[in-house]
């Protein structure tokens, strides 16, 4: 069928059954191998991703980036890994040993587990559980537990402060994240990631641009990337919950963070950019895998770009942006979308009997245009609202500094 993963599966299955294993045992062995390969790949691809990110960041900041180890510095990450392996893992006095070492392990596990439900091609997915999207949210909460463990067990005030700050931010942004995860579920009518990807002849990013943007923002905060990187604001709390970690224990946190960013890109590609969908991907599933990788790296590049350009924001700004802007906006979007879509469905059912169908691009057009209209209206409202908030904040600041003596412009630098 042209799908490399199915071919490999058939080959291995035939081989194992040929050796005398029963089909069930053969399936179990293959599942184990697949899980091992998947988990290893998630970590190994970081070697390339970290190099890519440092290179792109360097270019954004008008530097060259890593360029010493290997051609274009491509082996820099390997060298860093070897260096970290030779460093001491310091155990701070008064540390709570078991949680201290459990934290980085759970952190990495919480990221790898996400990949179980991401569809790579039309036919290949780790496991298409019927609660796929909720599974994502549940696995994400493991990461929060890991942050708490690290902060608590380090016996360090900065680590504890950083952990609680991180937890406050992570749980807050989990609300808009889960709310926007609901949008593809609503439109697809299923929580299976495979079905969500398959139901996008028109990408959800095109029919629901606002939902995609809110999800991107919420995910950026979940990953803790700039402008939401105040979990490790070095000028305030050293390195947050990672302060007391060194050597490979630190490397695991580092790896989890990078893997999380890449995973976020893969999630957005699957949920809003059609995953493996693209011309010819249904006939040649391997082609779908290539589309999926391209989309993932496109989103990943976007996240590097925002990291290289946006300044860090304050914790109070982070919290009020979430609770007073993103969450109300998400609720309004869900209410209006469901209402408009349901009314359109009942009214238009006679003219467009395929209104709910996701079979082809033409079938999807009436529904997609209604979703797009709702998104654009709410999006316009959001832009107006945020502009109003920004103007108010500027006025407030001008009043706050108005008692200061005015500075003569141009005299000070003479």
């Amino acid at each position, binding site marked *: 069928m042209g799908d490399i993963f199915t071919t490999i599966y058939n080959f291995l299955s035939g081989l194992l059954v040929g050796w005398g294993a029963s089909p069930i045992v053969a*399936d*179990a062995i293959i*599942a184990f191998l697949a*899980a*091992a390969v998947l*988990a*290893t790949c998630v970590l190994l691809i970081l070697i390339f991703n970290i190099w890519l990110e440092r290179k792109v960041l360097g270019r954004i900041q008008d530097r060259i980036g890593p360029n010493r180890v290997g051609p274009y510095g491509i082996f820099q990450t390997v060298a860093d890994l070897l260096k*970290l*392996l*030779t460093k*001491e*893992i310091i155990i*701070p*006095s008064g540390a709570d040993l078991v949680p201290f*070492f459990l934290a*980085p*392990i759970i*952190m*990495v*596990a919480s990221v*790898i*587990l996400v990949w*179980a439900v991401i569809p790579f091609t039309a036919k290949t997915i780790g*496991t298409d*559980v019927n609660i796929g*999207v*909720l599974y994502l949210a549940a696995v994400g909460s493991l990461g929060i537990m890991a942050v708490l463990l690290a902060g608590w067990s380090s*016996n360090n*005030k*900065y680590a*504890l402060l950083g952990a609680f700050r991180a937890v*406050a931010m992570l*749980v807050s942004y*989990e*609300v808009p994240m889960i709310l926007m995860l*609901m949008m593809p*579920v*609503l439109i697809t*009518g299923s*929580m299976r990631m495979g079905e969500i990807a398959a139901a996008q002849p028109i990408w959800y990013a095109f029919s629901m641009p606002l939902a995609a943007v809110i999800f991107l923002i919420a995910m950026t905060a979940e990953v803790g990337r700039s402008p939401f990187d105040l979990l490790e604001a070095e000028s305030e709390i*050293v390195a947050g919950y990672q*302060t*007391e970690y060194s*050597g*490979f*224990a630190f490397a*695991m946190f580092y*790896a989890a963070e990078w893997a999380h960013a890449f995973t976020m890109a893969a999630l957005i590609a699957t949920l809003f950019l059609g995953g493996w969908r693209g011309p010819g991907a249904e006939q040649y599933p391997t082609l779908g895998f290539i589309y999926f990788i391209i989309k993932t790296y496109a989103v990943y590049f976007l996240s590097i770009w925002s990291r290289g350009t946006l300044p860090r924001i304050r*914790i109070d700004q982070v*919290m*009020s942006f979430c*609770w007073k802007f993103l969450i109300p906006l998400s*609720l309004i979007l869900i*209410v209006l979308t*469901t*209402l408009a879509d*349901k*009314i359109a469905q*009942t009214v238009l059912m006679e003219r467009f009997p395929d209104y*709910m169908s996701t079979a082809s691009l033409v079938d999807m057009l009436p529904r997609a245009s209604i979703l797009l209209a709702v998104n654009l209206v709410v999006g316009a409202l959001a832009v107006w609202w945020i502009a109003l908030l920004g103007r108010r904040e500027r006025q407030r600041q001008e009043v706050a500094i108005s008692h200061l003596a005015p500075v003569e412009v141009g005299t000070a630098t003479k």
Partner: protein
Amino acid sequence: MGEWTFIALLFIISLILPAVPIIAGRLLGPRKPNPLKNSTYECGVETVGDTWVQFKVQYYIFALVFLIFDIEVVFLYPWAVAYHQLPLFGVVAGIVFIVTLAEALIYAWRKGALEWV
């Protein structure tokens, strides 16, 4: 059940995979602890008092508000999955549920519980 076997396997592997390098790092890396090196890192200043200080109540309020929204979303997910088959009445019932929770958000907002001071 078969689909959960894969997740169970992946869970075990994803715990082992990061544990191995940490253990290897403990074995391969140097191990020369001394009291100064192991002391709490606070930018060179000696640490004062207990680490587990009392935190402000704001963290608690945010966690509580989050908990309520978390439960709300859990109720909404089955509704979202069944959305295609629901009549307009069912959709409106779900919207009433969301609006009630929006009231909770507005209450918290007006009471100043969402201020991070």
